[in-house]
């Protein structure tokens, strides 16, 4: 007939493939290539410039023997759990409140969302200031007469990471609220009617019916929050520079510091490889389940 051979696989859907070249290049060259490059050089003793002097796993032995790295990991875990839990909880509660057909919804929403427009650098600076024990919140309350009042998270090693979380939540929950609100708006009104007729209390409806229905929203939200958590850097630098001491160090900062301050690229790369590895272990299987299924052809 008109075509006797099946068209070559490669040229089927050609336009889509051509259009995806930037994505493919980014994925392969930048993300895969860059990552492979990083991993490769993590086995070297590169200092200021990348060089291929292999030293095996030395950088990794050293990494895991470094107290600062261990503190960084611990901080990231605490910060991650706090961010994740509170972002979702606060974001959802605010969204649920805004979804009650309230007055001034626009105003409230704008108030909750605006911090997201500000960079982490700005956020860090402002909160560094608000949490300054001398003239921030603690200072003001002490001046009001409550002299024993203590709220100085940024200057207290054991709670400094919570101080950073406060700022992070301030900056980030607005977006989460928006996502959640959008998700809530997407829920069929009939569900609410059904729950009301059945006499299910509102909180139960949310917990057992609405939230499970919002799975896709939660997934997008999780991607956004989690990627932000792993990458947290600017905020810490702007707010505490990792201090007091090394109490608020985070892995991304360790990577940066060792690559550029300490001029020990190998060590920095080893640390980033560990970060990547842990991200991959969690993300890749999930991403395959989530996005790999052929929902359409």
């Amino acid at each position, binding site marked *: *007939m*008109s*075509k006797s051979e*099946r*068209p070559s696989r490669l040229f089927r859907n050609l336009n889509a493939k051509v259009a995806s070249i930037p994505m493919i290049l980014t994925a392969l060259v930048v993300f895969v290539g860059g990552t492979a490059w990083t991993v490769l050089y993590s086995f070297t003793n590169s200092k200021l410039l990348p060089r291929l002097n292999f030293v095996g796993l030395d950088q990794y032995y050293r990494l895991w023997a470094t107290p600062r790295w261990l503190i960084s990991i611990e901080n990231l875990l605490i910060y991650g759990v706090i961010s994740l839990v509170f972002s979702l909880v606060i974001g959802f509660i605010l969204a649920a409140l805004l979804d009650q057909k309230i007055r001034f919804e626009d105003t409230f929403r704008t108030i909750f969302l605006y911090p997201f427009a500000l960079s982490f650098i700005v956020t860090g600076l402002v909160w560094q200031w608000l949490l300054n024990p001398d003239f921030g919140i603690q200072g003001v309350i002490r001046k009001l007469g409550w002299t024993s009042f203590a709220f100085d998270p940024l200057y207290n090693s054991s709670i400094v990471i919570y101080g950073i979380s406060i700022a992070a939540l301030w900056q980030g929950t607005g977006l989460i609220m928006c996502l959640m609100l959008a998700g809530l708006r997407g829920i069929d009104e009939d569900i609410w009617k059904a729950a009301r007729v059945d006499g299910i209390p509102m909180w139960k409806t949310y917990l057992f019916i609405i939230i499970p229905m919002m799975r896709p929203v939660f997934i997008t939200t999780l991607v956004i929050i989690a990627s932000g958590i792993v990458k947290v850097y600017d905020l810490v630098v702007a707010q505490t520079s990792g201090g007091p001491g090394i109490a608020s160090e985070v892995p991304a900062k360790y990577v940066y510091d060792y690559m550029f301050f300490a001029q020990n690229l190998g060590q920095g790369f080893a640390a980033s490889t560990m970060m990547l590895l842990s991200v991959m272990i969690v993300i890749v299987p999930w991403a395959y389940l989530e996005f790999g299924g*052929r929902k359409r*052809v």
Partner: protein
Amino acid sequence: MAEIANPSVSIQNLSLNYGAVSVLQTLNLDIAEGEFIVLLGPSGCGKSTLLNCIAGLLDISKGRIFIKGKNVTWEEPKDRGIGMVFQSYALYPQMTVEKNLSFGLRVAGLPKDEIAKRIARAAEILQIEPLLQRKPSALSGGQRQRVAIGRALVRDVDVFLFDEPLSNLDAKLRSELRVEIKLLHRRLQNTMIYVTHDQIEAMTLADRIAVMKGGVIQQLDAPQTIYNRPVNRFVAGFLGSPAMNFIEGQLEAGDAAAFTADGVSIPLDRYEFDKDRGSAGKPCVFGIRPEHVAFGDAAKAMPFTAESAVEIVEPMGSDTLVWTKLGGRNFSFRVEAEKTLRTGDPIRIGFDPARASLFDTPSGNRL
């Protein structure tokens, strides 16, 4: 199945798999020029998938598709000479009706006057002239579907594909548009392939119906044949509303073949067996449509009669459906709307086994 000499659409050994899941299995279908074919089946039977394969919107795994004698298996949808109407109308929301209609023609680069001519014709046929400058959001559901049909119309093609076009409409509009589609077919004499799960649409519109299940065509025949002589229990049960009565039992041994179930014995001497009647004691299912059941005095004349009592009465307006028990099974039949029956009334029913269907229980096939 009669060979069609010059099929308009011919599907040969078509298969479609998603990984290990087989959606369509070695399917063959020849459609004659100008024929109105309805693909009927429950959701998930593969009927829409088959239509999308014909349209070229899905890549098939195996087999070939011919339209007008041309192998279009690997052709783009636009090159197949088809027009398609979708369930959700799929009108481009940002374009006016006119732009919606002309979009495909503009893409194809047709001259302006030709486009105008075709739109005028389609608008005239579908009576949507006053709507041409409106956006789809300003149209009612029926109007939208007319525009969607118009979009297929202007393409001036040989084969029209309808993917459940009336499912999103209310009952009244549905029957109106059904008639219009029938008229359209009469006027255009195009080949039309129509996917639906609605048996009324199928019965009223089709020259032939293909009943599908599990990616396989169960029966392909004229509507009356399918209705009266379903090839298997699935087809029998799927068509007809209210549904056919089924009584499970077995073939009686002895010279006068009969069907027995739970104290009922139905003589089968008037029944036309499809194949060999099989051995005695063979488990089978007896099916009879409610409208083939006589009641009262009329029942007495029937080869088979039985006494029973009314259980539920369902007035339908035009007639009334009465539920009773036969052979231990729920059994329904129709009576005129004027008859007043109450629950518990003793009744006599009867029918002619010649109008019944008998299916083999394990395979479900017609005996």
